């Protein structure tokens, strides 16, 4: 009985245990060797990731509030992997930081929040998880303690998310008022599509849109992404987004299936706006960090297309894409983070002639950008391909072939995005620079993360078994 119980919340339990270990370390002696401490934490995260493959059970807990199954376990483990990669990459930055343990405790508590959110079977549980995953993020955004922009980012993040949470909560309470329940299964039967329900759904969706920064709920991203430390920016733009998208898909498909016509149209607008505005923003960025952050806004637009598919293929393609997206985006962020930590250089102009002194890093960055742009044979191509395939597979109920319009717009945006991704690659390999970035010395941890990312990018696309596996879980 107890073992069943523990097995069901194994993923959450492990993260909590790691947090407690870190807490005890904090209570102990003051001075520690930061490098060995970081290695120790990374080993813990590796163990956490590996154990994510084993002993996964299916079932519900806490009076039907919490549920888990092999698909959800896989989603959690994808996030584990992403967190591990980010941790490996922030080695250089954290090495000189005083508050390593606090950083990880905050990071892991957001991860814990995401796990509860993914496993939620009740809107209350969902909201609890959401808050747990948001509030510590504001503290994390403030982690460059001496930088003013970092505090500004934290302040803006907490204020904006408080606002969006308020509206989300308002939506949830109206939904409760309209249906009398918060449980997913019961909700899905009660929904009939009255204006009140739709209004509350729009608020609910806007709360999600805020988290995965869909236009027009994305405005906070610019300032927060720029001000936060690179590791936090990559965490925000990859892991946090991935988690909320996982939840969004399952909530839409499971709870709001009855009003799918409504959310199809809503997603249509959001996706078109997000792709265009995200691309327009990314086009003008000169700062690599901001550039990657905005390109990730545009990527969300593509993911929304996959979600519009309303099929098992839609769900599988989103999970598959996020896996690939973690590899590609973190590969790129990793290089930028390393270069920024060592030399302090962050602009596109600084990257001119980067290839001259940094062969390995240039290739990692180039492969990641190719994957983000969706150029075959990198995994990004296959990821986008399946997303668009899922979106095209939606049979239109109205006379308008909206799905094909959406695909056409997506294709157009892929071309636009190609321009700015290739602009970076051109800067790295072709542009002349009298004063290129010096050779950046990389250590074991970042190198390991690059190997994971590049291998992921190159292998995931060709191993169609990965997609098939996800697809089989979704069905």
């Amino acid at each position, binding site marked *: 009985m107890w073992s069943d119980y523990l097995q069901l919340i194994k993923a959450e339990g492990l993260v909590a245990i790691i947090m407690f270990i870190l807490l005890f370390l904090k209570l102990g002696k003051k001075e520690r060797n930061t490098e060995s401490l970081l290695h120790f934490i990374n080993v813990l995260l590796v163990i956490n990731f590996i154990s994510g493959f084993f002993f996964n059970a299916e079932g519900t807990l806490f009076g039907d509030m919490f549920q888990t199954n092999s698909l959800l376990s896989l989603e959690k483990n994808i996030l584990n992997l992403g967190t591990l990669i980010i941790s490996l990459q922030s080695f250089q930055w954290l090495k000189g930081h005083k508050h390593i343990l606090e950083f990880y405790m905050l990071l892991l508590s957001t991860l814990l929040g995401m796990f509860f959110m993914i496993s939620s079977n009740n809107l209350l549980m969902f909201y609890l998880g959401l808050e747990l995953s948001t509030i510590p993020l504001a503290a994390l955004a403030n982690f460059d303690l001496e930088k003013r922009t970092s505090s500004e980012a934290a*302040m*803006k993040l907490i*204020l*904006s998310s408080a*606002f*969006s949470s308020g*509206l989300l909560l308002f939506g949830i309470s109206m939904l409760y008022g309209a249906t009398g329940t918060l449980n997913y299964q019961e909700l899905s039967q009660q929904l009939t599509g009255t*204006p009140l329900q*739709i*209004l509350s759904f*729009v*608020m609910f969706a*806007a709360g999600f849109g*805020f988290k995965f920064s869909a236009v*027009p*709920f994305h*405005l*906070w991203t*610019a*300032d927060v992404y720029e001000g936060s430390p690179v590791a936090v920016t990559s965490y925000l733009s990859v892991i946090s987004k991935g988690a909320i998208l996982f939840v969004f898909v399952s909530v839409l498909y499971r709870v709001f299936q009855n009003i799918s*016509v*409504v959310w199809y*149209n*809503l997603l249509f*607008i959001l996706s078109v706006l997000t792709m265009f*505005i995200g691309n*327009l*923003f990314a*086009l*003008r960025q000169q700062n690599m960090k901001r550039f990657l952050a905005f390109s990730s806004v545009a990527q969300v637009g593509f993911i929304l297309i996959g979600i519009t598919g309303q099929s098992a293929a839609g769900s599988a393609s989103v999970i598959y894409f996020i896996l690939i997206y973690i590899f590609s985006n973190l590969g790129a962020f990793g290089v930028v983070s390393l270069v920024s930590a060592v030399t302090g250089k962050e602009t596109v102009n600084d990257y001119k002639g980067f290839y001259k002194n940094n062969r390995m890093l240039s290739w990692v960055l180039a492969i990641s950008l190719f994957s983000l742009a969706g150029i075959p044979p990198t995994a990004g191509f*296959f990821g986008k391909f399946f997303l668009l*395939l899922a979106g095209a597979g939606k049979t239109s109920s109205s006379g308008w072939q909206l799905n094909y319009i959406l695909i056409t717009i997506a294709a157009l945006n892929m071309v636009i995005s190609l321009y700015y991704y290739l602009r970076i690659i051109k800067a790295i390999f072709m542009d002349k620079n009298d004063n290129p970035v010096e050779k950046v010395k990389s250590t074991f941890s970042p190198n390991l993360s690059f190997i994971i990312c590049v291998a992921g990018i190159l292998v995931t696309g*060709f191993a*169609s078994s990965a*997609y*098939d596996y996800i697809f089989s879980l979704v069905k």
Partner: protein
Amino acid sequence: MNYSEYISLILLLPLAGFVLLGLFGKKLFKQSSGMIGVLVLLISTVLSLYTAYQYFFVNGKLNDVYQTIIPVKYTWLQFASGTSIDMGITLDPIAVMMLVVVTFVSLMVHIFSLGYMKGEKRFSTYYSFLSLFTFSMLGLVVASNIFQIYIFWELVGISSYLLIGFYFDRPSAVAASKKAFIITRFADLCFLIGILILAFEGGTLDFNTLIHRLTDTQSSQYISITTASFLGVSVLTWALTLVFIGGAGKSAMFPLHVWLPDAMEGPTPVSALIHAATMVVAGVYLVARLFPVFSINEASLYIVTWIGAISAILAAIVACTQTDIKRVLAYSTMSQIGYMMFALGVAHLGGESGLGYTASMFHLFTHAFFKSLLFLCAGAVIHLIHSNEMNDMGGLRKYMPVTHITFLVACLAIAGVPPLSGFFSKEEVLLAAFHSNKLIYGIALFTSGLTAFYMFRLYFSIFWNKSKSLDTHAHEGTFSMKLPLIVLSICTLLAGFIPFGNFISSDGKNLELPFLLNFSIAPVLFALTGIVVAMRMYKKENNLPHRVAASLGGLYKAAYRKFYIDEIYLFITKKIIFNLIGRPAAWIDKNIVDGTMNGIAYGTGKVSHWIKGIQSGKVQGYALYFFSGIIVLAILVIYFWK
């Protein structure tokens, strides 16, 4: 041994060779790349022969019918249930035969190149390209999926491009490789459209399922593809014709043949491998692979037949007038592939009427040996003389005895003199044509006379004619160059005695190839006449050829200029496409497209400027936009867009 245990090695070894030599060849294996290439191909060849033995003699048959065996299959991209791109290996009689032909000829070429390419600066690059080509060609012949064949089809095209342009410091080689690539690309575009139509109508990309569905007259796919029509022609005919255009491009069929003679700019062993024995027969192979579908569609078979026949005679006429020995061989290849094509075109599925199918494959098989032999001999000659021009040669029989004898064997074979292999296979092709269409038979007969004439014109011009004195150091080349010539000439001598119908027939059943003594009188007479005429004109130096050329006048000139087909292409592209389409398009591009783009860029700049205004940095402003976003969206989905 089970097939699946070793069959992939036949393909993967050349691929590994390509990767190894391509990445490290220049640094690590500067000298030994050739030996590595030969060794890899040797193992592949032995495995292919073993596979052939297993398939044909041990376990390929079930109830006296050769089965299609798929030992390896990997689903790569799944689109929908039933429609997927697979990577697989199919074994059926023609695939197994092609495995043997490709690996064997490739091995011979690898060995020959050891001597021929010796001292070349990019020696290991050459071998890595050869390995890439071999891998791609093998992948093409064993493809289990029509999309797989397309992928390898393009890979073959790429490796051909790389090898034709191997001497990239010569502008003519660069132009030739571009020409070959662009023309086959156009054909491949048609091929792709054909594939997509077939896949759309058949609901699958898998060869066996596709053939099964499209030949079953009861199936819904068959009914839909035959009843639907476009411009008055059924969709099936369209699809097959488009597929055939792809095949015709690769196989250098009229009028898409113009790239083949120019492709002779590549190293001669490459011409022997790619432009004689393997890649150029890919089109024939493609039609044979889809033969069950072609056979239910009279119209597309009719196209195949006539394109084949026209190519056969046209190329033979042009070959009589060319003076570059490799170009003569190139036109001869085109002519012989024409034979294979129309043999397929006159065939039907099953039994005696499937004779053309077997004959075509038989001719493909024997042609691979004697034509690669001819090219390798030509390579040996060019290696000695350093020229492709017939006028620079003559009396070489004293200097290169092995080349002389093997070249003679190959000439006799291609001319169809009994009992060499070419005689038997050409005999079956002619017989198939005779039973089906007398006009085709007439063309084929006349062409076989021409074939004998131009081959012996070549033979006498190179080895007899004027006596040329070379310095005493002139020798024939290394042992590695002679060995393939001898091995191939033995194959040329013996390949005709293989009872081919026992192995390959249109329905997999045993087919006794008919051999009629009185029927073979006419072709042999034609061949002998051709030889005698050639001997009279070219054995000794005289002015007879000039007089004949003068008396033929315009016809000779037209044939010498290859019937002006290149000029027609140039006229169409330069005058019509560039002036009528290109220039207006350029104008539109400069003024309208660029203008639009500039406008978009300007607009984008404006919009981002405007967005920047939204991005004020003030959180209360963000909240306002957030809230208005919700209101607008809610109004939209509740009232306007339900």
